[in-house]
């Protein structure tokens, strides 16, 4: 049996007196792919933010790799994530952005070749000198995936990664997630696209109105 790497126990969150996460319980085992499905506002992104430590639950425990988030540590530091609203610097190139994030987060400089390999891995041209603000939505999405993969974290969160990706982009994403799973990563991924989630997930959590209303093991 593989190890539990993320656990949510009776997590509740209220905003303006409204329950937006309601008694969420889940266990994430290492080296599995977990799909998070549900309509807008169902609580998928909020669950991700709670796991990362960006939201402090009113009640309940969030445990990542044995550490209580927002109790023992503020943030889950070893999770790579791609969440749309946390974007990179528009006035810099993709390479500059990744270098800057790497230097500041890890206090080390990574060889440019590693960053170029990472950009190639997500399907971006490492020699592209365009500023990110001139990128298409699909390219920005791919760059966001590269940011998530930057520190070679064991756990990865991808929030709606299929947004702005065309068919070939989605095929690429499926291949990438399968490859990451082979490399031992644990992946949490949300999408509106049930077909996509069915294709890549080992386990799907169905969210509605801030709570898990169903689970499906594939």
């Amino acid at each position, binding site marked *: 049996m593989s190890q539990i790497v993320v656990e949510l126990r009776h997590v509740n969150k209220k905003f303006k007196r409204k329950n937006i996460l309601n008694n969420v319980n889940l266990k994430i085992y290492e080296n599995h792919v977990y799909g998070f499905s549900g309509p807008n506002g169902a609580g998928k992104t909020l669950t991700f*933010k709670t796991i990362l*430590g*960006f*939201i402090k639950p009113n009640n309940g425990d969030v445990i990542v790799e044995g550490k209580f988030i927002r109790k023992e540590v*503020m943030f889950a530091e070893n999770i790579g994530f791609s969440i749309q609203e946390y974007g990179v*610097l528009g006035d810099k190139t993709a390479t500059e952005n990744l270098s800057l994030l790497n*230097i500041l*987060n890890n206090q080390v400089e990574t060889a440019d070749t590693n960053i170029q390999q990472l950009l190639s891995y997500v399907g971006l041209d490492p020699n592209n000198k365009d500023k990110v603000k001139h990128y298409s939505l699909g390219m920005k999405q791919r760059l966001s995936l590269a940011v998530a993969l930057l520190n070679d974290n064991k756990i990865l969160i991808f929030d709606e990664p299929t947004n702005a990706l065309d068919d070939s982009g989605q095929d690429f994403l499926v291949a990438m997630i399968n490859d990451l799973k082979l490399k031992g990563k644990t992946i949490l991924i949300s999408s509106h696209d049930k077909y996509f989630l069915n294709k890549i997930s080992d386990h799907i959590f169905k969210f509605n109105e801030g709570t898990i209303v169903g689970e499906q093991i594939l």
Partner: protein
Amino acid sequence: MTQQHYNLLLKRNRMLYWEQIRIKFIIVTLVYVMLLLQARHQQQFYGVFYGVLQAPNDFAMPIQWFFIMLLPVAVIGDSFNQLVKIEHPLLNRVGLSTYILSIFQIMSEMLFLFWLLWILIPGNNQYYLFSVILFLNSSLSIFIFSLISLFLSPVIAYFIAILLAMGTIANNKLPILSQFMLSRFDSNLMINLFNTIILILIVIILFSCIRYIEFTQIRK
């Protein structure tokens, strides 16, 4: 964090901060320079910060002082909130306190520029103690405003700032804030030291609450 990495963080946050405030900053600086030039023309070197000493049964509104005090607040607006709640998560291995301190440094640089303009344009070199205390305490007040805006909405933080400015105008002896008016300024060093310590304590108390921040801001 090494000095080299901190400088890089500063450079990154300066760029983001500038993106957020540049239009407001240019407008506000122009208004500020115009007010200072007017003061220079009228040979009122103390000019814009003079304020008012209210007489019994009378109320005078020092419009210039009111606007000058709120100008930095108007420039900062929601930018601190955005810089912390939207731009910090990708750097979540950089300590939140270090990150916020870097933004405080950037805001102080902006206030220093305003302060320098006030010294240079009207040729203001007679009110040395007042100007230093004003720079120090207004910087601390701006930090307080910024930290409050993390927990309440920036609109409420604005409202509090306006209320405090109005309260200062109405009350000749409002602790700490009355010292922001040259007309009421008490040069007693102990009083000024005490005021600064109180402001620093408020900053420290608010700073200790940053662990409760929720990163739920929407990118503008």
